[in-house]
């Protein structure tokens, strides 16, 4: 089974039915899979804080949401995470492409990569880092944990997890 399909299977199995995405090369296969699933309403957003607003509304409307984005978005969404998702105590799985790690070809991506885990730690956001494909076996448990504790939870997926970037 492809890793893209496995990730989306886990999302569907955990009742996630509202997914917002901001495009990403590494996550393109997951986004395509999300879009293809009849169980999921896929709503692309123009910026990640907007996406978190959509997810907050969807959750209050009775759906389990998720957001798919790049780690640069952590810089965009700190205020939304603090004053909306965390303040009102809402669950939000964040499946994040961890750009700027090993095998990264674009130097500027490293500039946010070095801040990513520090920012997530400062925000007290539970954070999981998928480095090898087998790490994805924890996704099901992470999703259950997210909806158990009603918190935003970060799942960082780096280039090694995806089998390289730019040289695949």
């Amino acid at each position: 089974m492809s890793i893209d399909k496995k990730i989306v299977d886990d999302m569907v199995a955990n009742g996630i039915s509202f997914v917002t995405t901001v495009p990403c090369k590494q996550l393109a296969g997951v986004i395509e899979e999300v879009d293809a699933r009849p169980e999921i309403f896929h709503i692309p957003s123009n910026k990640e804080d907007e996406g978190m607003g959509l997810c907050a509304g969807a959750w209050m409307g009775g759906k389990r949401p998720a957001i798919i984005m790049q780690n640069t978005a952590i810089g965009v969404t700190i205020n939304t995470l603090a004053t909306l998702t965390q303040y009102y105590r809402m669950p939000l799985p964040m499946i994040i492409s961890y750009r700027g790690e090993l095998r990264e070809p674009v130097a500027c991506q490293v500039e946010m990569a070095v801040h990513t885990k520090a920012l997530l730690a400062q925000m007290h956001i539970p954070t999981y880092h998928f480095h090898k494909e087998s790490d994805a076996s924890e996704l099901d448990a992470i999703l259950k944990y997210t909806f158990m504790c009603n918190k935003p939870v970060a799942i960082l997926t780096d280039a090694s997890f995806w089998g390289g970037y730019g040289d695949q």
Partner: protein
Amino acid sequence: MIRSEILREIAPILHDQLVVCNIGLPSQELHMIDDNAKNFYMLGTMGLSSSIGLGLALSQPKTVISIDGDGSVLTNLGTLPTIANNVADNYILMIIDNGSYGSTGDQPTYAGKKTKLEKVAEACGCENVVVCIDVDTGKVLQAAIDSKKMTVIVVKCDSGNIKLPVITMDPVVIRDRFMKAVAS
């Protein structure tokens, strides 16, 4: 009319609907005028009233009204294409356009200068965009609810604020009672 006068006038219409209310004075005013479980007050996160309301409308069948401001829509201008391209006929975005950032001291917004939010909304693909003056808000809002078509209303009104206290209700309480009202 200023925003608080409009909210007072349309409160009987809002009372029966799910309302997502913008940060700052709009939420404080609605809280003072008609606090009830069907109001979701934003205590922070400027700009996301329209996004929260759209997500809610897309996820359940009841009518949802997002009360937003011209300044807040400008903060999250990317919301308008998302709204246009994800039609929810139970969704109304009501932009109270007083041409100023009311909660921070009435500094002028670009919507009070050359930018026309109704034209921006139309250019983004929103199909039912209605512009009205303050005194017509109730009539226009009721018509939008009755139409069962996704509608963006731009209410042109005066800039100005009343003095009132901040909302001290716990955010989790606001959210919890709102979710119960949504599900009821």
